[in-house]
């Protein structure tokens, strides 16, 4: 041991100059490790210095104080970057360039792998983009009106034995509310009627246009509440006088070309002249009000005097809507509290008790009870499906990427030896994933653009991909890219960057090392569970649809053409036309009727039976039809007889449901009893009872119904034709009709098409879920293919040895087949209860439903197996047939 010199600081040399042990212990525990040695030494030295100068107590005090000054949080930490060579940050341009270059090389080398990845991701992202567009489109409905949070629509709950809902209110309600109360700033009634005939004088000729979106009669305040800007004309004077109208730019151009439409005349239904006093900008796509001609409300009494009158409290039609903009601070509940007074005053005895409610403008598009186009639930379901598909696509990516990981172990090894740290490797793989994601994004944008018209047709929507004009979609795309990249790149990135370089370079990485074959199995199971759930959904929905379309409707809908009556035609003319129709060679039968037996058009009222003092507590649907109606549609009589020909209500035929509602058992019991509808407006004896038929969609029960000769309500000629002669017959119908009504437009529709419209939503759901299931299966198969390829590469040697030892090809294929059979079975066990639960819930919305049998599940599983076998078959057979010499030769 060296002898210390006189002012040495070695504490061992001067045993008395030892600082307190507990303080030093504190220092060693808490001071950063990398500077501990020098700091401990320095402080010892200082202690000795203070000790020599001012004694033990002061030295100890100063020592404690100074130790505390180098403890966290006071101490500054030395940065860790001090190393022998310089590390470039992962975000350094040189590194980024390198990542991109390597990524491109890797993708180009494994082109199959890249293709599978890009295709899978692009498919998922296409669905994501389309569904996002669809959902934002629906959420944007009518959200552009000023003060829309204070704007409400009056709607009606009709309380009978059951509650039904209508978006309409009695016409006088709006006027009464406006004069009686001061709750609202603005109140406007709006009566909309579809399918209007518009005649415009163009030069000498009269041009006829059928406007399917029809005409709206609007009170002036309407345009104060709804933001449909006027191009010409002033708002103050617009739509106050009778026989004035404003129309959209589009229609103005259609009717008048480039000439100014102002003060021009158009004629509506050959009856009402309208002078154009303003032009509206074309309606935005995201509004539920589609009428493009707005006539002044004062004109309504020329169109429908009853509706326009102040005492039409008796009934409601969905055409008549009323909107109100409440004053700030007024709650809808306040308003709803005063509305029952109107019911008490104007409908004191009615069995149909009205409850008027205020519906916020924001709910208008989403409340199916009041005719909203798309419920929020459906939007959520779509969003979930979209998310599912995206997850499947990402899962697929993770699967393929981890399967590829082994092939890249050498690269990772070399990189690590050359100084890569984990973070860098991780970001390298994220960059690669990002590259694939961006490629997939571009591809999916292309696909989405191509598919958009199809989606628009399915949903009856007017979607646009607003890539540049709007911030929502670009933001979504950015978020999508980032999330998909992170979600699908993170796991493979972590796995790859974790490799031990020595093992990786020696090629000694086992399956365990690359992070669990089991993870990938779980992912495959997830994918297949999703696709099998969707497949079961497809089968159930398809079965129910087939059942609905083939089931006994109770009447014959084949080969029936529904020809619209001319507006304002007299009964005499109608009969003449009907007779001339019957004379045509291809026509079997003609009936004048209000609507087909099953129809959306609905007239229901509370009946009074057998001169009882009160109306019955249920509603009856009334169908107008002449004496030919029942035979044309093959409606079966169970008691009594058909009605006699008449032009007004003389006799009634009712259905079995009507008899049941009266708590009678024998259908014959109602024969000869009197029936009155709408007060005593329609009255006559019941002469027959017909077998029940489905008058609405299968979602609904069969309601009480009666048929009578209500000539004033006839809307159609139902024409039974000889199908092989359809073309000339339709031409003949057109000729006769147009000859009789030269000023109107001939229109017809086949009945089975009309009925198919009932099931529009279901057909749409079927198409959608088919598409989604197909996509899910496809993506799932990509994943399976990736898994099998990986297995084949892994087991090359094993297969070689097995073959040398005498395995048959079949046994080797079973290695693969057994694997995916097990996975699909597990997926199936997961999917079965989920699908069963979801589909039972869906089926409950139908009154007549199929049951979900085991055949559905068997079929779903077989289907999945078949697709899976096709996917993995080629790859596994190729692996099994490989010559063992090739796989065993090199070691």
């Amino acid at each position, binding site marked *: *041991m*060296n002898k*210390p010199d006189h002012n*040495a*600081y*070695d*504490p*061992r040399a001067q045993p008395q100059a030892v600082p307190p042990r507990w303080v030093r212990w504190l220092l060693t525990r808490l001071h950063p490790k990398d*500077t501990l*040695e*020098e*700091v*401990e*030494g*320095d*402080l*010892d*030295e*200082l202690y000795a*210095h203070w000790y020599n100068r001012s004694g033990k107590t002061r030295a100890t005090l100063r020592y404690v*104080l*100074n130790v*505390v*000054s*180098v*403890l966290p949080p*006071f*101490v*500054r*930490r*030395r*940065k860790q970057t001090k190393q022998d060579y310089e590390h470039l940050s992962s975000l350094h341009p040189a590194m980024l360039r390198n990542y991109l270059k390597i990524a491109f090389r890797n993708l180009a080398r494994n082109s199959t792998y890249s293709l599978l990845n890009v295709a899978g991701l692009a498919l998922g992202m296409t669905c994501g983009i389309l569904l996002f567009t669809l959902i934002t489109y629906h959420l944007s409905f009518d959200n552009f009106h000023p003060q829309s949070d204070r704007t409400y629509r009056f709607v009606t709950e009709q309380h009978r034995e059951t509650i039904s809902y209508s978006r309409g209110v009695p016409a006088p309600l709006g006027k009464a509310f406006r004069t009686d109360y001061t709750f609202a700033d603005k109140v406007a009634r709006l009566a909309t009627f579809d399918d209007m005939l518009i005649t415009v004088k163009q030069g000498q000729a009269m041009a006829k246009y059928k406007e399917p979106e029809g005409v709206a009669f609007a009170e002036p305040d309407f345009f104060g509440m709804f933001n449909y800007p006027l191009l010409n004309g002033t708002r103050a004077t617009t739509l106050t006088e009778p026989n004035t109208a404003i129309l959209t730019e589009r229609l103005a151009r259609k009717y008048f070309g480039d000439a100014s439409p102002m003060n021009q005349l158009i004629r509506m239904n050959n009856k009402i002249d309208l002078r154009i006093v303003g032009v509206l900008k074309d309606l935005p796509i995201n509004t539920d009000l589609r009428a493009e001609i707005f006539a002044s409300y004062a004109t309504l009494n020329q169109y429908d005097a009853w509706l326009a009158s102040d005492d039409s409290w008796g009934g409601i039609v969905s055409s008549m809507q009323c909107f109100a903009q409440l004053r700030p601070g007024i709650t809808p509940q306040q308003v709803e509290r005063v509305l029952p007074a109107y019911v008490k005053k104007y409908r004191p005895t009615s069995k149909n008790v009205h409850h008027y409610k205020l519906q916020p403008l924001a709910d208008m598009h989403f409340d199916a009870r009041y005719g909203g186009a798309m419920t929020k639930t459906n939007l959520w379901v779509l969003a979930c499906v979209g998310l599912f598909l995206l997850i499947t696509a990402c899962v697929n990516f993770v699967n393929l990427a981890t399967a590829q990981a082994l092939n890249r172990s050498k690269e990772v090894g070399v990189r690590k030896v050359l100084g890569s740290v984990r973070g860098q490797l991780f970001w390298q793989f994220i960059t690669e994933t990002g590259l694939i994601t961006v490629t997939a994004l571009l591809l999916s944008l292309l696909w989405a653009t191509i598919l958009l018209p199809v989606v628009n047709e399915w949903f009856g929507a007017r979607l646009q991909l607003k890539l540049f004009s709007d911030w929502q979609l670009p933001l979504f795309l950015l978020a999508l890219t980032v999330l998909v990249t992170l979600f699908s790149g993170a796991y493979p990135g972590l796995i790859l960057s974790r490799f031990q370089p020595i093992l990786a370079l020696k090629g000694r990485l086992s399956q365990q090392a690359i992070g669990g074959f089991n993870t990938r199995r779980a992912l495959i199971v997830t994918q297949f569970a999703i696709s099998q759930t969707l497949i079961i959904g497809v089968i159930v929905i398809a079965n129910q649809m087939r059942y609905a379309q083939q089931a006994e409707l109770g009447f014959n809908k084949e080969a029936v053409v529904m020809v619209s009556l001319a507006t304002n035609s007299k009964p005499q003319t109608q009969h003449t036309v009907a007779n001339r129709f019957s004379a045509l060679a291809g026509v079997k039968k003609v009936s004048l009727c209000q609507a087909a037996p099953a129809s959306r058009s609905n007239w229901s009222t509370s009946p009074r039976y057998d001169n009882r003092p009160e109306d019955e507590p249920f509603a009856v649907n009334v169908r107008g039809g002449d004496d030919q109606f029942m035979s044309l549609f093959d409606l079966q009589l169970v008691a009594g007889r058909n009605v006699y020909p008449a032009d007004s209500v003389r006799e009634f035929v009712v259905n079995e449901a009507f008899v049941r509602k009266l708590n009678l058992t024998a259908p014959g019991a109602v024969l000869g009893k009197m029936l009155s509808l709408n007060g005593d407006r329609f009255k006559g004896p019941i002469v027959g009872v017909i077998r029940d038929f489905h008058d609405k969609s299968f979602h609904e029960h069969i309601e009480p119904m009666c048929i009578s000769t209500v000539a004033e309500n006839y809307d159609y000629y139902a024409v039974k034709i000889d199908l092989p002669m359809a073309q000339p017959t339709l031409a003949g119908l057109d000729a006769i009709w147009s000859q009789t009504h030269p000023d109107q437009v001939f229109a017809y529709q086949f009945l089975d098409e009309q009925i198919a419209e009932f099931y529009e939503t279901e057909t749409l759901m079927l198409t959608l879920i088919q598409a989604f299931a197909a996509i899910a299966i496809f993506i799932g198969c990509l994943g399976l293919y990736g898994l099998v390829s990986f297995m084949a590469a892994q087991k090359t040697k094993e297969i070689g040895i097995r073959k040398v030892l005498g395995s048959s090809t079949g046994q080797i294929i079973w290695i693969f087949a057994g694997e995916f059979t097990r996975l699909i079975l597990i997926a199936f066990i997961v999917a079965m209860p989920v699908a069963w639960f979801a589909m039972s819930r869906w089926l409950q919305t139908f009154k007549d439903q199929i049951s979900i049998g085991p055949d559905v599940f068997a079929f779903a599983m077989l289907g999945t197996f078949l697709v899976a076998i096709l996917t993995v078959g080629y790859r596994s057979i190729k692996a099994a047939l490989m010559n063992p010499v090739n796989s065993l030769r090199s070691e």
Partner: protein
Amino acid sequence: MRRTYLGEFEEVVLLMVAILDGEGYGVTVSQALEEHTGRVVTFGTVHNTLIRLEEKGFVVSELGGATAERGGRRKRLFRVTALGSRALQEIQQLRQELWQLVPPQSLQLSSL
């Protein structure tokens, strides 16, 4: 002119490192500080400042060889870098230029 900000205390510590000329480490810098300026500061302040100066590139450090002194614990010895010495010179020059601009009577008056 853009340069890394050098605080007053940092400047003094940097000067001490320059004065000690290769012999500067925690203890000597603290003692020199006390001796030349009369300022008594905690060891942590000096330690932190030295680290900060190194991060800014004004000094470099290396661990001295292990000796039997202080229980064989190594010292971290600091040297001023070119950047550090330029920073000191610039400050010096700036001060000088500013002194030139001060009218002689103003300081005399205020100091009286």
